[in-house]
C-alpha cells in the first residue's frame, strides 16, 4: 500500500530539510566569529539535495525516485572578509582580522524556505495518516 510509503518519502524529506535548517543555524551562529587568518575562518555550508531511489519504489510498484536526501554539504568558496582592526586581540601582524563571508538575509530566506518545505511534508503525512485510518475503518 502506497500510503505507507508516504511516511518514508515525506520522512526522508523532513530529515533533509532539518539538515538544511541545521546548516543555516550553524552559518548564522558563526557569522561573527573572526579569526587571524583567511584559512582558519569559518566558511558557510550549504547542503545539496538529491532524490533517492530505494525499496519504496518496490512498494509503489513504480519506477522512479522516492524521497529526498542530502547528497553533500558544500563549503562556500567565497573569500572571507578582511577587516582592519589592529585593536582586536585576534588580529594578525598587519592588524587585519578575517570574518566569514555570510549574508544574513540569504541565510534567513534559506531558513524560511526550509521551514515551509518541512511544514508541507508534515501536512502530507497528516493527510495520509487520516486516509489510512479511514481505510482501516472500512466496512465497520
Amino acid at each position, binding site marked *: *500500500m*502506497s*500510503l505507507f*510509503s*508516504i511516511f518514508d*518519502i*515525506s520522512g*526522508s*524529506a523532513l530529515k*533533509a*530539510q532539518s539538515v*538544511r535548517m541545521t546548516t543555516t543555524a550553524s552559518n548564522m551562529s558563526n557569522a561573527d566569529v573572526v579569526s587571524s587568518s583567511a584559512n582558519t575562518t569559518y566558511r558557510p555550508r550549504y547542503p*545539496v*539535495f*538529491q*532524490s533517492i531511489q530505494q525499496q*519504496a519504489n518496490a*512498494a*509503489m*510498484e*513504480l*519506477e*522512479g*525516485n*522516492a*524521497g*529526498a536526501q542530502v547528497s553533500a554539504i558544500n563549503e562556500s568558496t567565497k573569500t572571507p572578509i578582511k577587516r582592519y582592526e589592529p585593536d582586536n586581540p585576534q588580529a594578525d601582524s598587519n592588524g587585519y582580522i578575517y570574518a566569514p563571508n555570510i549574508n544574513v538575509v540569504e541565510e534567513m530566506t534559506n531558513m524560511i*524556505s*526550509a521551514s515551509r*518545505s518541512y511544514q*508541507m*511534508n508534515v*501536512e*502530507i503525512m497528516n*493527510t*495520509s495518516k*487520516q*486516509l489510512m485510518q*479511514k*481505510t482501516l475503518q*472500512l*466496512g465497520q
Partner: protein
Amino acid sequence: MSLDIDGYLGIHAKALAVRDKRSAVIANNIANVDTPNFKAQDIDFKQVLKQFDNKLPMLETSHSQHMKPQDNLLMAMKFRVPQQGSLDGNTVNKDVETTEFARNAMQYQASLNFLNSKIKTVMTALRGE
C-alpha cells in the same frame, strides 16, 4: 445468484488503488521540492482507469517486444508540464502539488465512502433483519 464481490465493488476498489499510488507520486514531488534537476511526475488517472474498463478497446500487440497494456501504472506516469522554469532545473510547483494532493485525498475519501456504503448494503442483506 453467486456473490461476485469483485464485480459488486466495481470500479471503486480499483480507483482506490490508483488514488493510493497517485498520492505516493505527489508526495514524492513535494518531498523533492528543493532537489535540483528534479522533474515532477504524476499519474494520468483517466488512462489507468481506461485499462480497467473492458468495454474500451485495448492496445493490440502483434510482437513479443511490444509494450503490453498491463494494468501497471508505468504507462500512465507522465512528467508534469512546468508552468514556470527555475534556475536549478526543478519543475515542482508547490501550489500545484499541494492542490493535487488535496484533490486526490478527497477523491480517495469519496471512493472509500462508496465502498463503505456498498459493504453496508451487503451486510444488511446478509443479516436479513
